[in-house]
């Protein structure tokens, strides 16, 4: 028998049927019928944030760590507009998310009613799709479609705008949750074209100086197991985008680390000198390629991506393959194994020799300008890199690490080695300061038994620090490592390098709060570190069993003059890099 439910009850019931465990949100007038429906049930836990932006980042962190869509509920008007930054963040990084925004009653839409915003219009450029509910009976079908669209193909955020009258408690309609979705206008490609895959494999078996270039698509697409087997089978080097860290074990020899603007010397050199790029789930972003006309001049390019629009958008590729990364990699693997089995001995030897020489070149680059992962504490100002290296040591490389945006983000990406996917959680595409803390909260909600660290800077942290209150309410024992350089470090670095050291509005050292007192006022634990010799002890304490159930904020005062290197030279090729304050490598 079909249940008769109000729109508000239907909405919550549909989320239950979709298997949603957490709803991150903030109430308000237009959302009150829905909030009443939440009150009457126990299956979905609602997490009350302190600002709607944080609700979207929490849902985002939850989604990145688990692969399941994050779900958000906000009210109309300011509730909806506050959610936009988080929606845009998820959109740029292809994160599955469903956002419900309450709306003023249908009859008031267009009248500039109290707390009215055209949410479908405002969010349009930053969503994968959006819906507006017209009548309550549509709700189950729209919710089903929204989850389908958010989680399939290239994932992304979907907004459902819900006018208050469609959730009216007294107006009942039959509830039935659909089993499946069919849409003639939406059928994302899954399997890659076999002819293209064959072409790619034959290019791979002929390459002399190949490199895998993998991005967030391999993580979001759950393609990392197959990727690892394929890369090991071929013995090729691999480099990863910021979003792809963890797709391949961080410390393995074949992994050259991150590429691009602050990528490793060996990654960027290899990308410039390679004769075959196998790009998977990466999008040739401007922070990777440097000047597109100078990009990888000798390379044949294979590009695997689920989004056809990502292919040949920035760089024209030779062998495009549209498809799901995991499925394409599986096909590549089967074909490679078959080809290798029947391969001519001379061919095997010839490629083996070429690869050995390629590795020799790469090892040379590594030895010359690779990152130093054996930093030691001394009596000089604390190097931010040392803090991340120490964090890696203390957490044994097992933490889920979220970050904000700026220098600390790059240091974390360079110095924390991620051996598993979904452990490195940061806003790569949009570059959203204020992401780190709420994202860490979403991760901790999803994985209560895991260690979650948020590497942040004082600038980013202050953009969403109100969520310390939410952390107390839900007992989230996040460990926050604040690389405090008393400035907007990355802005200041650019001003040092490109604006003659004129620090226009990037410093505020005389007005910073005492973070230890601040977090203690929120009911948490604070530790301040100013000497390198105290660092390891402080981190050991923060991550010790005695602090297991506590949020600990470690405020580390780092060298304010430190820059992130390597750094790409604007307008150059990938091998054009500044390597330190006094040295550059230019072609």
């Amino acid at each position: 028998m079909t249940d008769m439910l109000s729109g508000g009850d239907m909405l919550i019931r549909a989320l239950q049927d979709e298997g949603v465990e957490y709803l991150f949100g903030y109430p308000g007038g237009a959302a009150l019928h829905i909030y009443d429906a939440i009150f009457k049930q126990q299956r979905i836990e609602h997490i009350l944030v302190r600002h709607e932006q944080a609700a979207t980042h929490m849902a985002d962190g939850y989604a990145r760590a688990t692969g399941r869509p994050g779900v958000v509920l906000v009210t109309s008007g300011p509730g909806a507009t506050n959610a936009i930054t988080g929606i845009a963040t998820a959109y740029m990084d292809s994160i599955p998310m469903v956002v419900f925004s309450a709306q003023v009653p249908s009859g008031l839409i267009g009248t500039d009613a109290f707390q009215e915003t055209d949410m479908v219009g405002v969010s349009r450029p930053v969503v994968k799709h959006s819906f507006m509910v017209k009548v309550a009976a549509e709700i189950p079908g729209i919710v089903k479609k929204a989850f389908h669209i958010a989680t399939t193909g290239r994932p992304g955020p979907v907004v459902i705008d819900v006018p208050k009258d469609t959730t009216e408690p007294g107006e009942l309609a039959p509830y039935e949750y659909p089993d499946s979705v069919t849409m003639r206008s939406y059928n994302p490609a899954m399997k890659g074209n076999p002819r293209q895959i064959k072409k790619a494999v034959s290019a791979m078996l002929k390459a002399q100086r190949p490199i895998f270039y993998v991005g967030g698509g391999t993580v979001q697409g759950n393609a990392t197991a197959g990727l690892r087997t394929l890369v090991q089978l071929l013995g090729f080097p691999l480099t990863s985008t910021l979003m792809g860290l963890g797709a391949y074990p961080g410390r393995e020899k074949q992994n050259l680390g991150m590429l691009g603007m602050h990528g490793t010397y060996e990654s960027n050199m290899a990308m410039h000198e390679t004769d075959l790029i196998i790009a998977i789930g990466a999008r040739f972003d401007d922070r990777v390629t440097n000047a597109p006309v100078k990009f990888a001049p000798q390379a044949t390019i294979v590009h695997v991506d689920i989004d056809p629009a990502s292919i040949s958008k920035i760089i024209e590729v030779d062998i495009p393959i549209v498809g799901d990364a995991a499925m394409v990699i599986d096909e590549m693997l089967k074909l490679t194994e078959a080809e290798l089995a029947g391969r001519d001995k001379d061919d095997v030897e010839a490629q083996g020799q070429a690869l050995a020489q390629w590795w020799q070149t790469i090892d040379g680059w590594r030895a010359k300008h690779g990152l130093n992962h054996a930093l030691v504490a001394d009596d000089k100002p604390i190097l931010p890199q040392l803090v991340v290296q120490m964090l890696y040591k203390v957490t044994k490389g097992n933490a889920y690490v979220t970050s904000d945006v700026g220098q600390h983000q790059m240091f974390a990406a360079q110095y924390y080695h991620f051996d598993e996917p979904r452990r490195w959680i940061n806003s790569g595409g949009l570059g959203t300061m204020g992401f780190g803390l709420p994202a860490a909260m979403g991760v901790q909600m999803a994985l209560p038994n895991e260690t979650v660290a948020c590497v942040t800077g004082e600038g980013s942290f202050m953009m969403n620090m109100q969520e310390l209150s939410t952390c107390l309410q839900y007992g989230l024992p996040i460990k926050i490592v604040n690389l405090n350089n008393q400035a907007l470090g990355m802005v200041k670095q650019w001003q040092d390098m490109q604006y003659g050291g004129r620090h226009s509005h990037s410093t505020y050292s005389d007005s910073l709060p005492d973070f230890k007192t601040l977090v203690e006022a929120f009911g948490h634990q604070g530790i301040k570190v100013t000497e390198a010799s105290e660092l390891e002890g402080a981190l050991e304490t923060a991550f010790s069993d005695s602090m297991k159930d506590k949020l600990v904020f470690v405020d580390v005062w780092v060298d304010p003059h430190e820059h992130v290197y390597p750094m790409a030279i604007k307008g150059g090729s990938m091998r054009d890099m500044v390597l330190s304050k006094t040295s550059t490598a230019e072609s």
Partner: protein
Amino acid sequence: MGHHTNMRRIIAVLLENEAGALSRVVGLFAQRNYNIESLTVAPTEDQTLSRLTLTTFGDKGRIEQIIKQLFKLVEVVKVMDLVEDDHIERELMLIKVRAIGDGRQEIKRTADIFRGQIIDVTGEMYTVQLVGPSDKLDAFIRAIGKTPIVEVVRSGVSGIARGDRILTV
């Protein structure tokens, strides 16, 4: 990708006839800095579908991106670049001109040559209706020369492929 010549393209799109679908198409062009020269849209014989024709300019890479990005919109069912093969394009123009003295005959003759019709007449005005490819309408405006134009309304291009090539669900 640059260095290619700018091409005029006529792109036909079938999209779900739903509220908001058109704004997504128009928004996409604004958001990604693509040009729209003209755009026409109306429901088809199937009331659940709208057919949209838009003309745009760009090099090969840009046109490819436009088509891919259009297809990415969830409500877009099919996309076709009509210029890739034989096709027919038509645009409707209503043009109101000041017609006095000898000019009245001259405009009538020119309209006949272009197979246009005078659909409204006053003592001082002619309103001419003309159908054809956009360049024919441009040519008519040039041909009437010194005649003062009072008002021009153009429908934008509608297009369809020739022969067996069809855009349907």
